[in-house]
């Protein structure tokens, strides 16, 4: 009896371990399928010509996604320009003043902002920026995406700095350093890997955002460098071309999907490398 009940428990134990392992493995499957599918559909479309040309009208062969690539890079560049300084500085405040009332409310708002659906941010940006300015523009898209980046940058900065030992700052203050120098010369350099990884992840996050751009950057079939005018971006191109009835436009969308996917993957890998390389051993 005794031995049988123990054996039953050992069996149950194995069963549970197998179940946990199975589901851990199951989590890998969606990504593998997506990768495989997009690769299969997109790999034949991608070549140099695809990257440096703009889309051709229906019926003409060839054409590429240069306008969307340039647009995505420009829009993200300006979003980063807005969101990174604000986010990092706000994160510094939150980690320095953990218990202040402002920190409490600021943290709460940032957390809620993170949960606001991107389409809502798009609509708000449309009414607040696009309409007053009188038309769609890349910069309004940048602002909408910056709002989406902000919470990730703020919280990752805060979490990174919180983990730094207080002895680090004390050492700096005891040498007679003023607050801004303590932050810029000691705290930020030591926490740089964590802050950068947050920034990179936030960029990876907004790279694929479509909804806010529908109302703001709008899209543009031609190559444009003017951030005051509508501009194409990768997710917008995919949205517009994949829903078109033409096969060569759909192909273009598949190619663009693969480029977008590779971009995000590379950003993630790059983030891991940076985190490891620039990590300061405490």
């Amino acid at each position: 009896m005794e031995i049988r009940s123990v054996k039953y428990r050992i069996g149950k134990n194995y069963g549970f371990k197998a179940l946990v392992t199975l589901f851990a493995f199951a989590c890998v499957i969606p990504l593998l399928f997506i990768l495989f599918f997009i690769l299969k559909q997109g790999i034949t479309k991608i070549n140099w010509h695809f990257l440096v040309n703009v889309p051709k009208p229906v019926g003409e062969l060839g054409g590429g996604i240069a306008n969307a690539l340039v647009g995505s890079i420009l829009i993200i560049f300006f979003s980063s320009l807005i969101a990174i300084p604000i986010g990092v500085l706000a994160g510094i405040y939150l980690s320095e003043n953990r218990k202040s009332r402002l920190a409490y409310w600021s943290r709460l708002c940032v957390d809620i902002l993170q949960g606001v659906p991107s389409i809502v941010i798009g609509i708000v940006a449309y009414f607040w920026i696009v309409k007053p300015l009188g038309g769609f523009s890349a910069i309004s898209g940048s602002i909408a995406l910056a709002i989406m980046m902000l919470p990730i940058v703020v919280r990752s900065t805060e979490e990174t700095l919180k983990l730094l030992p207080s002895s680090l700052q004390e050492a700096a203050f005891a040498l007679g350093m003023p607050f801004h120098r303590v932050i810029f010369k000691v705290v930020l350099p030591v926490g740089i890997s964590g802050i950068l990884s947050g920034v990179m992840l936030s960029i990876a996050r907004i790279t694929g955002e479509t909804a806010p751009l529908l109302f703001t950057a709008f899209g543009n079939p031609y190559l444009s460098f003017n951030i005051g005018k509508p501009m194409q971006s990768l997710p917008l191109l995919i949205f517009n071309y994949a829903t078109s009835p033409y096969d060569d436009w759909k192909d273009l969308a598949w190619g663009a999907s693969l480029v977008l996917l590779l971009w995000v993957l590379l950003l993630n890998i790059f983030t891991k490398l940076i985190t490891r390389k620039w990590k300061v051993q405490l």
Partner: protein
Amino acid sequence: MESTIIKSRNFNASFGSNHVVKNVNIDIPRNKVIAVMGPSGCGKTTYLRCINRMHELIPGATSSGEMTINDENIYQMHPIFVRLKIGMVFQRPNPFPNLSIYDNVIAGYKLNGIRLPKAERDRVVEHSLTRVALWNEVKDSLTKKGSFLSGGQQQRLCIARAVAMEPEVLLFDEPTSALDPISTSTVEELFHELKTNYTLIIVTHNMQQAARVSDKTAFFYLGELVEYDETKIMFTAPKDSRTQNYITGRFS
């Protein structure tokens, strides 16, 4: 005749409503080693941190009363000047982990944006490391990170960093409590060396250490300065019964 460098009159410090340093009056003589001892939570570290105004960096911390250096009120000076005059070494060695050994020593200048010619920097680094008996150990690895050193070496590096600023007073907050016995005795030997140029105030809860290294000893208990006298007298003929009880180990 010894001259007084740090003077406290009716000095109080609190964290919010928690009154941790009560009405402390003390005269600290120049170029001596002063030990501040007492049981945990007696306010000795808080008092020390009031001397270079590190106490006020903690949210909710307040202080009152008079604290002077060379008869100048510390609480009317800018804290940055106070901290340049009064260096500090902490309980745990805390070299800047992102800086080399060389840059750690010069950190007070480099990170404060004070530019020195290269030759002068080299001189300060060599001189400071020599003062803390670390130069021979690290002179070939000055470009390595400070965190690559052993705990005792790191602590001496931190002392060198404080010494490099040429302060008048050096505060030590239980400087050896995170070190092994050999490193501890190396650091203790340093105190004798350093007092020729600086006034040293050392917080310790190790009575033997206080007896070994200091000229004068202050005994704190429950936030009050119970007794302050020549170390020899403190450990042989204390006047207050609480001091007596503490040094004979009746409470700790």
